[in-house]
């Protein structure tokens, strides 16, 4: 029994014990127990993941546990990476949950299933056989669904979000089931040689199933609904850890199980990734619900990861294994970075939602005074998410762009068309994400409070801040010294492609020209900021100074109504992307009865609905409904008729059997 195996066993054991303890304990102890269980399971998961990532694979067979097939576990470096990331998200989320759950008074079942949810996510990448994967996947889906529904008594929207999530996740499950059965079931760690057509079908089904979990457009509809409505530590677990498992599934089936495959697969992945990235961040930029914004940003980041995967597949197909390794390493680093900053962002957004009583950016503002630590946490997360140095996403997106640009010469016609477009999409996404997070931070946390709740908001308790601090530290490590984790990631990627990046302080691309030193860059930014601040302090010091009132046009004090709202901030972007977003606006002018020339009131409405949802899902839902209505006529409630149906069905079956025999 090696370290990986025992640590993973420990994680599952701790989670199960914590769940049992929560079920038995009185209400006062439940939050602490559930949170501690989750955090400890996460810590054990990190240990297991790191052990597997640094080259201690394991395999474990439990034949008696599940009838017919048993359970088979095993982990290589790639699984180890995803186990480690999941565990690393679970630790801060668990610590945070001890404080959060105490103040939101969640039910016994919601507390009890929290550690189980974390443990099931740790098991998914460790599943070595198809049936084991499906079992763990379903366990993860069910426990996460229970978590999403945790606050359904207080908010009716939660039930609707839960319905969307339940349906979408099970459709995804059906796709994965079909894909794995078509591929012949059995071990996931061995390459299967299938005929091209069948392999293509398997891949597309797996892409649909796993992609829906990763929130890829057009299968993302559940994500911006379910992630905001869940309690915030669950949002963090789902948005930072669970979506990654969709990526894991795509890598495992595409590179591992099917061993590479045709070029069109990866072009499809790349195109879906680019569309998701741009569409996700556009919707995030339009969103004025803080957590919904973060949910859409998850779609964006998973899109970027898929761009990396698609590029890796393309390069591997044309024999450029070094570049393929670079693209895959960039994708994995982005997975890790996204996990870190999205955990931080969701945890701080949760503190805001709990303390200010609203997630609406148009009603927030002025939190800097009441919640300084949370504000700092969100600011650091926003910087990490916006692909600007010294942020976390900057390093991985830089690597991704390097891979795409260097891949141009050797890729053939398709690559010559697709890669520049992908570069443009990544660049556009980076710019829009900066605007989005400026909006979220600027209107949500700075300026004056726009509502009583925001004005009264007090700082979150220590345990919640500790959770944010852990996630923030992870962001800092990945942003400043990515060289510490990159070799391990490169080796995990090399399992399927080739080694790519080297260097601890300065990252050097092997096989392509390119160098970056995030630490030195951060120091330079810091130095310039300090010099500028010092200069501004010294410069006016020599002249006489006079304190004057803030210029407010001479009128009374400035009010919160005069501030830029989130909606107003996003309006120029909405105009630019009018054709894509198709916003709905309406103006109603009411006149006075006495004279048509006098206006009594003007009402302006604006909504930016999710266009994919409107065009794709609503017709499908309408069709399903129509079908159901039509089916109703067959079941009018008469017992005789039902007996008749049974009789005719048996007769028809007999006839069919006689004829075909």
């Amino acid at each position, binding site marked *: 029994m090696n370290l990986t195996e025992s640590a993973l066993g420990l994680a599952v054991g701790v989670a199960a014990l914590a769940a049992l303890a929560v079920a038995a304990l009185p209400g006062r102890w439940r939050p602490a127990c559930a949170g501690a269980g989750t955090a400890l399971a996460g810590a054990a998961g990190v240990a297991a993941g790191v052990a597997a990532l640094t080259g201690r694979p394991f395999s474990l067979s439990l034949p008696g546990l599940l009838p017919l097939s048993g359970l088979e576990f095993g982990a290589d470096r790639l699984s180890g990476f995803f186990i480690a990331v999941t565990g690393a998200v679970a630790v801060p989320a668990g610590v945070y949950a001890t404080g959060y759950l105490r103040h939101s008074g969640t039910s016994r079942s919601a507390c009890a299933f929290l550690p189980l949810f974390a443990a099931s996510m740790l098991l998914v990448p460790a599943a070595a056989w198809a049936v084991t994967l499906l079992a763990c996947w379903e366990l993860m889906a069910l426990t996460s669904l229970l978590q999403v529904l945790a606050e359904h008594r207080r908010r009716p929207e939660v039930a609707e979000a839960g319905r969307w999530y339940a349906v979408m996740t099970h459709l995804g499950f059906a796709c994965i089931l079909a894909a794995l059965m078509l591929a012949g079931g059995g071990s996931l760690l061995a390459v299967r040689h299938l005929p091209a057509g069948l392999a293509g079908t398997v891949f597309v089904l797996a892409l649909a199933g796993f992609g829906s979990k990763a929130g890829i457009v057009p299968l993302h509809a559940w994500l911006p609904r379910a992630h905001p409505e869940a309690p915030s530590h669950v949002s963090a677990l789902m948005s930072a850890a669970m979506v990654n498992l969709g990526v894991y599934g795509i890598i495992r089936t595409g590179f591992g199980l099917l061993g590479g495959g045709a070029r069109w697969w990866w072009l499809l992945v790349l195109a879906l990734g680019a569309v998701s990235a741009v569409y996700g961040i556009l919707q995030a930029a339009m969103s004025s619900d803080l957590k919904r914004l973060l949910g859409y940003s998850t779609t964006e980041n998973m899109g970027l990861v898929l761009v990396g995967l698609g590029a890796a597949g393309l390069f591997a197909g044309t024999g450029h294994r070094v570049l393929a390794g670079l693209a895959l390493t960039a994708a994995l680093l982005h997975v890790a970075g996204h996990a870190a900053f999205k955990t931080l962002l969701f945890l701080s957004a949760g503190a805001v939602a709990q303390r200010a009583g609203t997630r609406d950016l148009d009603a927030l503002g002025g939190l800097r005074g009441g919640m300084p630590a949370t504000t700092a946490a969100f600011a650091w997360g926003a910087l990490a998410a916006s692909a600007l140095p010294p942020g976390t996403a900057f390093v991985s997106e830089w690597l991704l762009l390097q891979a795409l640009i260097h891949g141009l010469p050797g890729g053939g016609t398709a690559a010559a068309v697709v890669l520049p477009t992908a570069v443009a999409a990544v660049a556009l996404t980076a710019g829009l994400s900066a605007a989005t997070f400026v909006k979220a931070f600027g209107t949500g946390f700075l300026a004056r409070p726009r509502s009583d709740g925001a004005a009264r908001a007090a700082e979150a308790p220590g345990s919640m801040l500790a959770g944010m601090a852990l996630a923030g530290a992870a962001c800092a490590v990945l942003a400043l010294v990515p060289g510490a984790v990159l070799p391990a990631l490169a080796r995990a990627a090399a399992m399927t492609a080739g080694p790519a990046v080297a260097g601890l302080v300065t990252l050097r691309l092997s096989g392509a020209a390119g160098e970056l030193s995030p630490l030195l860059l951060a120091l330079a930014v810091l130095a310039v900021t300090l010099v500028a601040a010092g200069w501004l302090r010294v410069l006016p010091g020599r002249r006489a100074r*006079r304190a*004057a*009132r803030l*210029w407010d*046009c*001479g*009128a009374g004090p400035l009010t919160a109504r005069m501030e830029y709202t989130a909606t107003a901030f996003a309006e120029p972007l909405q105009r630019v992307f009018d054709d894509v977003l198709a916003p709905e606006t309406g103006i109603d002018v009411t006149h006075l009865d006495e004279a048509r020339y006098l206006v009594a009131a003007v009402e302006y409405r604006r909504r930016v609905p999710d266009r994919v949802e409107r065009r794709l899902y609503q017709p499908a839902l309408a069709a399903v409904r129509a079908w159901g209505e039509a089916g109703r006529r067959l079941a009018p409630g008469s017992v005789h008729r039902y007996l008749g149906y049974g009789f005719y069905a048996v007769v028809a079956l007999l006839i069919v059997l006689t004829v075909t025999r």
Partner: protein
Amino acid sequence: MLNLWRKIRAHGRVAEPPVGGRGYPLVPGLRGSVQVRHVDAGSCGGCEVEIGAAFGPVYDAERYGARLVASPRHADALLVTGVVTRNMSEPLRRTYDAVPAPKLVVAVGDCARDCGVFKGAYGVAGAVGDVLPVDAEVAGCPPRPEAIVAAVRGLTGR
């Protein structure tokens, strides 16, 4: 590029010196260039029309080094028109506060000088001189653009 910078440094400000024929500028620190903020403290609108004419293409007060700006924070001088109404007296005081020193106040029109036709009317707090220290005055109801230009030249000294 460096050469250009060096030239800019060596030459400093290149403008015609204040000629002094119209008297030196009221504040030596302004050196022939005055940024002007116009404040309507309760005018009938007539003085505004004339100020517009004075800074328009016909009279072109800008050629004497004066320029209308959009905020008191950018200004060296206030051009105040009209009687100071009760509602505008506090904003006027705040506007004056917002102008960085050294600063000048010009009362334009008879209303601004001594309440003009509105003297004793309801809602009038007084002339500009009752609220702020006035440095120059322009008479007339409304004053002619030439008079406004002359006052502006008094400020810039050009």
